[in-house]
């Protein structure tokens, strides 16, 4: 509980600091909106040519995209500080966190990522708009499921990014983490476009299908999702968080500081 309070305080402090550059914030929001427009524009241009991809029509694919970028945006909002880790390890700056009487992880995570804030807002708009045209009927169970799936998806991305950025304790190349982050892109489109083996991987091994594909499939009813698959998302989210935590602990135990 103390960690949560500390986390929220740190995040608020960051927000105040970033409020200094208001014009930059506004253009950043515009950039984020443009980014989503470009991605959706690409999607729309492809769907102008074909009625369906992997069995999904354009509205259903947009629900998937909205859900995917919402969970990714939430993760980036909660844990942007992870991206500072490579530099902090190299410069030995992590020392400062380790001598504080609170978890270094909790101190590291909160960084205001302006992109992430507008990402969340834009994704939510896309998701709700697309759900409208895909004919999603929001009942209490549906909304509850969507909320649960959102938490699971965010946990999966958080676990993945924590594991990836923990590699900072082993390698001096932040480019590796940036490159590996690209793997999240696999979740952007219906899984049906991939060969069977890749579908199995993104469902059970690197379960990013639970950040967009399955939630959107349940919401739109485009594919029948067995109840146990939907339930497995919970277990996989817990496993992803566990894997991230294990990587972090393992890496931290190797951390030696940078000397002077």
């Amino acid at each position, binding site marked *: 509980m103390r960690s949560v309070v500390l986390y929220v305080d740190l995040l608020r402090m960051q927000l105040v600091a970033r409020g200094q*550059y208001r014009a930059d914030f506004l*253009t950043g929001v515009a950039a984020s909106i443009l980014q989503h427009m*470009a991605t959706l524009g690409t999607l729309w241009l492809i769907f102008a040519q074909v*009625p369906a991809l992997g069995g999904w029509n354009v509205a259903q694919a947009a629900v998937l995209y909205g859900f995917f970028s919402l969970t990714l945006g939430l993760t980036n909002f909660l844990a942007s500080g992870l991206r500072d880790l490579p530099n902090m390890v190299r410069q030995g700056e992590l020392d400062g966190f380790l001598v504080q009487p609170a978890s270094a992880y909790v101190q590291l995570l909160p960084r205001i990522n302006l992109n992430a804030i507008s990402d969340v807002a834009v994704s939510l708009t896309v998701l709700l708009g697309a759900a409208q045209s895909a004919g999603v009927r929001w009942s209490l169970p549906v909304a509850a499921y969507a909320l649960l799936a959102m938490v699971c998806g965010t946990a999966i991305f958080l676990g993945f990014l924590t594991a990836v950025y923990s590699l900072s304790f082993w390698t001096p190349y932040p*480019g590796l983490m940036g490159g590996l982050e690209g793997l999240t892109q696999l979740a952007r489109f219906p899984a049906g*476009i991939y060969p069977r083996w890749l579908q199995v991987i993104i469902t059970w091994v690197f379960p990013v299908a639970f950040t967009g594909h399955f939630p959107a499939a349940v919401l739109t009813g485009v594919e029948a999702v067995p109840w146990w698959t939907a339930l497995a998302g919970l277990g996989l989210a817990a496993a992803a968080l566990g894997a991230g935590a294990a990587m972090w602990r393992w890496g931290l135990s190797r951390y030696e500081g940078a000397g002077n």
Partner: protein
Amino acid sequence: MREFDRYWPTVQIAAKFVVANRTQYALQVMGDLLQIVVMFFIWRAAYAQADTFGGLTQAEMISYLFVAQVFRLVVTHSVMEQQIAYWIRSGDIIRELVVPLVYMWKDLCHAIGWLGAVGGISGGLVYVTGLLFFDVRLPALSALPALLLSLLLAIVISFGISFIIGTLAFWSDGSIWGISNAKQVVMAFASGALIPLSLFPSWLRQVVDWLPFQAGVHIPTSIYLGHLHGATLWRALGVQALWAAGLLALANWFFHYSLRKVTIPGG
């Protein structure tokens, strides 16, 4: 020749800096590659339903996807505008101005060295992956001279855009993070790097045809794929040359106009 001797070291320094960090750039490009692979599967699913899209066969589309990404990596990098914004923010721009070189030309040399090295490493990796695993086709030998000229012009065009955006830092207390991001996005989409312009609806196509971005990726990619010949080829190169000259002139004027506003943190 004396001029060349004065500017060449800047090209070398920029390139050497990148080469020293080559592993970093090579690893980073995995993200771009993954994005192309995802698009590859999207198009594969689409081509199961029709033979051509926007006049391109599946093989041509895959080649387009890879080659356009390679050219995007070779032609543009956000460091181009961030470099000048950094000088302006830190006040070091004053040091650059007392150097007996024209700042814009020096910055262009920096961009050429930087892009040559980053583009060579990142673009090279994407290209080789495409050639080896995705049957990306090679360009016709006869297209090479026009292709090289077109790429050089594309770099100048992209530099002109970046220089103008970097110069905006004079007007925004040195921070151009947001507008730089916006430029990268618009560049990726309107240049045809994400999806061929031939798939754009005609109203959107008309808009992007009047913007400089398509001269950055779409034209060189079309030359590579052999879609431009004779008069259309010369016309495309002419469009690029006009954009290059116009943007450089605008960038030069804007920089000198903005200089009047320069404030250097004293100490």
